[in-house]
């Protein structure tokens, strides 16, 4: 019995220790926030980085004029990159491959996986358009040799060719290949590869910083109760629950 009480007391102590968080009132927190200096030009750069990386070339041009912020990449290259991306999104994969090679032939040469995915997308488009013979020929001549080099390519190829086996593809197990999402996936892969080839980061910084905010708030939760921003899209401080 005595042991029981000792254990209970110890548990209570542990709990007290665990919950004894520092409480920071809204007033104190706002004072801390006011001490933080964020430079306007840094925020402008962050916005420019987003526009450029996401490929909003006209907006980036306008933003350069309206804010005087210099983009960290040649804006002309965005137009080319977006043309490639759009071609894939619209299913003109041959056109996209040509455009990538015009831009920089090394991109596909050094990136067999990307090249395979583009070719696979081309095959998907042929099947979508009911060009069965052409699709088979393309699969055997262009894709099969690549599959021999790489086991995962071969599996992908088999999965894609399986589309031909179904009369009603909308209801078959590999039907998702015909989905718009597949095009978008391929498009964003080629987009990232072009950015990397231009020694630019493939993702914009803003979403990572927003994730970092969520993470930093979670981390601080362990030690303190303070006003949080729960809804990022409203950026409003919410009082700590005490």
């Amino acid at each position, binding site marked *: 019995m005595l042991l029981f009480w000792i254990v209970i007391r110890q548990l209570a102590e542990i709990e007290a220790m665990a919950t004894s968080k*520092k409480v*920071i009132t809204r007033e104190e*927190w706002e004072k*801390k*926030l006011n001490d*933080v*200096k*964020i*430079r*306007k*030009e*840094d*925020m*402008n*750069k*962050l*916005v420019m*980085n*987003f*526009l450029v990386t996401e490929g*909003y070339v*006209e*907006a980036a*041009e*306008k*933003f350069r*004029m*309206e*804010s*005087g912020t210099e983009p960290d990449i040649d804006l002309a290259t965005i137009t080319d990159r977006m043309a490639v991306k759009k071609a894939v*999104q619209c299913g003109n994969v041959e056109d996209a491959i040509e455009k990538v090679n015009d831009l920089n032939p090394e991109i596909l040469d050094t990136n067999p996986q990307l090249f395979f995915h583009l070719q696979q997308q081309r095959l998907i488009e042929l099947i979508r358009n009911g060009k069965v013979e052409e699709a088979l020929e393309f699969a055997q001549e262009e894709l099969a040799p690549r599959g021999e080099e790489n086991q995962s390519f071969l599996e992908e190829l088999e999965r894609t060719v399986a589309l031909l086996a179904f009369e009603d593809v909308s209801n078959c197990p590999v039907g998702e290949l015909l989905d*718009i999402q597949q095009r*978008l996936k391929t498009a964003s892969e080629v987009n990232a590869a072009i950015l990397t080839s231009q020694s630019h*980061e493939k993702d*914009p*910084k*803003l*979403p*990572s*910083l*927003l*994730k*970092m*905010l*969520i*993470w*930093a*708030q979670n*981390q*601080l939760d362990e*030690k*303190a109760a*303070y006003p949080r*921003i729960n809804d*990022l*899209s*409203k*950026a409003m*401080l919410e009082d700590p629950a005490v």
Partner: protein
Amino acid sequence: MSAATNDTTITTATATATNNGEDLGRYFLERSRLSSARGPCDMDEDEEAPTELNTINSSGGFLVVSPDKLSVKYTNVNLHGHDVGVVQANRPAPEKRIVYYFEIFVKDAGAKGQIAIGFTSEHFKMRRQPGWEANSCGYHGDDGLLYRGQGKGETFGPTYTSGDRVGGGINYASQEFFFTKNGAVVGTAYKEMKIPLFPTIAVHSQNEEVHVNFGQKPFAFDEFEVQERMKLQMTIEKMSLPTNVSHGIVRSYLLHYGYEDTLHSFDMATKSTVPPIYVAQENGFDEHDILYALSQRKILRQLIRNGDIDAALGKLREWYPQIVQDDKSAICFLLHCQKFIELVRVGALEEAVKYGRMELAKFFELPGFEDLVKDCVALLAYQRPQESSVGYLLEEAQREVVADTVNSMIMSTNPNLKDSQGFLHSYLERLLRQLTACCLERRSLNGDQGEAFHLHRVLNTAGLS
């Protein structure tokens, strides 16, 4: 309601607005001064790291420190546990970073190889091995054990001897010690002490000789920091965001600052992508506050950015007379300064002098104003003012400061303002301030150890660090 009462109401309202406006103008003036060229932004980068061994506080008599203060040799014959040759670095390990690390090279393991590398507190007993006393930690060469002030060693890693490179480090992110041998991590241990710790080495048998490397030379092991950053980044990237939240924040930023042309291009583009991104609807933020007077704010921003201050003042007098009616207000002051700067920019110095006498002289001696006015006038002293210490005034950023202040002043005149503080900071700025404050607060609760967040640094390097 009689005409008389009506008039009074208006006068009172204007008076209040002017007062608020004055405070607001001041607020932006002060803020811009703080973040200008000499602003205290990245203070903790100055923390000094150890560079050499501390010869004053070493256990003299048992060891000899070389003249370059980077190697030690045990010169005595050890008899007991209180004649260890211990030496600390000249400074404690810097704390406001993600990782600190240093290395030793065992030149000669001597008679018994009783060498140790570790960290000790400032008042460590300088005749004992690191790890034998409280508030210290040491990885010992003769037994490969880790000692953490508990009197007994813990199984840790391999032994080390002549020819080995051994490293000791602190990972502030995880609050751990870590040790390496010949370029590979041997192990880690939780660091309970939050006090400043000095890199420490010890020798304890005849002819033992050790060289220390505080980063003057490349380390045998240098990937730790990179790996730590990658790990952190991967953890962060796993957080999930609401769909298109970034688009919404960018959009509200463009609205807030009146970048109207950019906004239109952005809206057009997001609607025509596959699939289209409908920002406003999805995030449902209340746009009324930041939509207020958008095109007027845009026009004023353009005028200021083009250096056409006269036209900007003219428009303000026409559209928002309440903002500029007090000629001694902070906003008028900023605009007059900018006009002066623009005159200097185009080389119209005589006109600048005349303008300065007429419009700026009254601001001399006024607290809060004299700092900027002096810098402005100082522009006249240089043949090439761009290259002078006040050259920052001629940069684009200064125009942006004035444009941003005017922008906020106009937003504050919105009679239907929902969020009374909304015009002070854009959503983006609020989020970034919250992020910075969270990181700083967490560090201060961690005994002031670890890295702070600096947007500026993130923007100038790859990834998040």
